[in-house]
């Protein structure tokens, strides 16, 4: 068969002039950038996809479906920036959910401003994220902080410490042990202020290199100082200090922030060495922080085989919040989305979420306190995470392995 040039011209014209029928139903894309080879990292796209499926099953947003486009940043700021640019310029996403590593989020922040791309982080904690929004609101208003800032986290740990450490354990002294990273700088600063205010004297402050593998000298030093409790700020290094603490039978309780302990696989990863470790979380699978928390944790476990880590809860909420903001804004115009997002009043899996106004030091960070987000302290006990604080939602009491010598 011979095709005449005329037919081709007509065909091309036809294609070009065809009414954009598909456009109305074109999905709203949300980019998700995370380190997918880590358990806490892969929770971010997993939970985002769950939220998108639920929203789509309920009819989508303004008649359009939500589509999650996910990118693996291999925990590298360079890869994350590349993914972010691709998301904005090639894949044309309307908003981004990015990373749980402060260093990565801080690298993305200026790009969110330059490309006018609404972005939220479900797990990074550095205070710097919201401070920059506060200092340069006009450029960086596209950035929201979907997790608590380190200072706020330290405050929760200290507040709970009044009951758990000072009240129940009669602890008087502590050594602060944190990994050297962007998120722990404000965390430690606040620990050093709020622990004494809670009645715990800080004997020493140890910052350890994130690539430390042998913690014996560190525990040895701490033990020599005879504190009643070790207050932690560990994330990347979480498994190894926990295992060595148990193997060397360091007789001092570990209490504070241990991000990897929030993963349900942590018990298995440490062969149960985490028994007795107390860590901070904002939602736990055994506590109805809101009516959404337990159903989400159960659905996540049914779908992916393990309980969600901390950034999965927030990532799930973030998709809903972006969807709401886009629905309210009536378009995917970034400025309108930001405006709508600032008015968020959303009950998510981690509590009642509201973003702080631009004149607050934590501009676009979440409001904490009673009625908003309060935080929990959870302890690993015989294979299960058990919430031990606050009392009104606690599902158990603190217990410790035999090698721990509690202060008298």
């Amino acid at each position, binding site marked *: 068969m011979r095709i005449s040039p005329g037919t081709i011209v007509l065909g091309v014209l036809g294609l070009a002039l065809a009414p954009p029928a598909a456009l109305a139903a074109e999905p709203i894309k949300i980019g998700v950038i995370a380190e997918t*080879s*880590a*358990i806490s990292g*892969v929770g971010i796209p997993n939970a985002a996809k769950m939220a998108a499926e639920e929203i789509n099953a309920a009819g989508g947003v303004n008649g359009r479906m939500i589509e999650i486009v996910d990118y693996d940043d291999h925990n590298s700021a360079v890869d994350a920036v590349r993914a972010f640019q691709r998301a904005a310029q090639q894949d044309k996403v309307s908003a981004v959910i990015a990373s749980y590593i402060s260093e990565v989020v801080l690298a993305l922040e200026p790009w969110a401003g330059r490309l006018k791309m609404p972005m939220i982080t479900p797990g990074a904690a550095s205070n710097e994220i919201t401070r920059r929004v506060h200092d340069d609101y006009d450029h960086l208003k596209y950035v929201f902080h979907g997790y608590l800032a380190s200072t706020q986290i330290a405050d929760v740990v200290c507040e709970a410490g009044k009951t758990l450490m000072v009240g129940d354990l009669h602890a008087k002294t502590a050594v602060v042990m944190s990994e*050297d990273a962007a998120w722990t700088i404000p965390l430690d600063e606040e620990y050093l202020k709020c622990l004494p205010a809670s009645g715990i004297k800080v004997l020493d402050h140890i*910052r*350890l*290199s994130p*690539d*430390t*593998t*042998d*913690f*014996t*000298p*560190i525990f*040895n030093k701490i033990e020599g100082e005879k504190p009643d409790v070790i207050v932690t700020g560990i994330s990347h290094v*979480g*498994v*190894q200090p926990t*295992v*060595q603490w148990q*193997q*060397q*039978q360091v007789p001092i309780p570990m209490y504070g922030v241990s991000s*990897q302990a929030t*993963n349900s*696989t942590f018990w*298995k*990863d*440490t*062969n149960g*060495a985490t028994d007795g470790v107390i860590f901070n979380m904002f939602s736990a699978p055994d506590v109805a922080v809101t009516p959404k928390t337990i159903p989400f944790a159960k659905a996540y476990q049914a779908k992916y085989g393990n309980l969600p880590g901390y950034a999965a809860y927030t990532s799930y909420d973030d998709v809903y919040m972006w969807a709401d903001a886009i629905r309210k804004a009536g378009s995917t115009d970034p400025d309108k989305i930001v405006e709508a997002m600032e008015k968020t009043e959303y009950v998510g899996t981690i509590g009642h979420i509201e973003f702080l106004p631009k004149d607050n030091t934590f501009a676009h960070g979440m409001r904490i306190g009673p009625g908003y987000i309060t935080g929990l302290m959870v302890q690993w006990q015989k294979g299960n995470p058990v919430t031990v604080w606050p009392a009104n939602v606690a599902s158990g009491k603190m217990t410790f392995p035999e090698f721990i010598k509690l202060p008298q």
Partner: protein
Amino acid sequence: MLALQILIDGFAISSLYALGAIGFTLIFGVSGVLNLSHGAIMVVAAVIAWWVGGFGSGPYLGALAGVAASLACAFFTYRVIVRPIQNSRAIPREEKEIFVLTATLLWGIMLQEAIAYFFTNNPKTVRPLVEGVVMILGVRTPLNEILTAVLSWLVIGLLYLLVNRTRTGKSLLAASMNPRGLTLLGFELSSIYVLVWAIYGVLAGIAGVLLGAFLGVSSDNAGVLTASAFSIVVLGGLGSVSGSLIAAYVVGYLETMTAYLVNPSIRTVPVLLLLVAVVYVRPQGLLGRR
């Protein structure tokens, strides 16, 4: 007290370093291959031991599975990665070493990424073969740490006997001195290479499993483990087994002393400085022959 603590802690880590590096140096000594997938193979052993041990099969079966995995990896590395390059007619003779270096490096990265993909890069700790602690003159020492040192030395001792007291072992030694002479005597070099890779697989596997139980490993550690074996081997003299043993103790104790007396965050720095100095002053290493 602190001195004793350093002595005990340093001994355990040094023994483990020695075991990890000895296979690496053996391969180089006998077949001239610098295997840059070394760290990844150790990680494979540890992660498989953790994984199999997690099914309730107990730490012993897990450890055995780890060593078997390492052995399989070593054979694969030799058969599929190294040997085709050594036998290739397309690659000029003088470039083969570089090809092997690059190929094993890339293979190591592939292994590392595969572990990260299937098991995530979260650190894993192998269940220790023995639990509990003992007091040695007032220093609380985990039994597992003692076992690590004892097992490392047991394996090194067995290797010594194998190399010096058996005919097969002696042929390994001969191959490292004069491979051409050995072929003239009617030995099949390729079967000696297979043997040395098998020994390597077992050594790296045991070292990986012990490391996994002692400190824990993650796929991210692969590069560092290769680098540490490499530094020890360069310090001791490339291809010299006894040099590597001494160097392992120098490195282990230097690191431990830095960690205890100066700061744990810079524990590897003095070793690297020492390495630079060695390369300047005595490039063949402590006991190097080449």
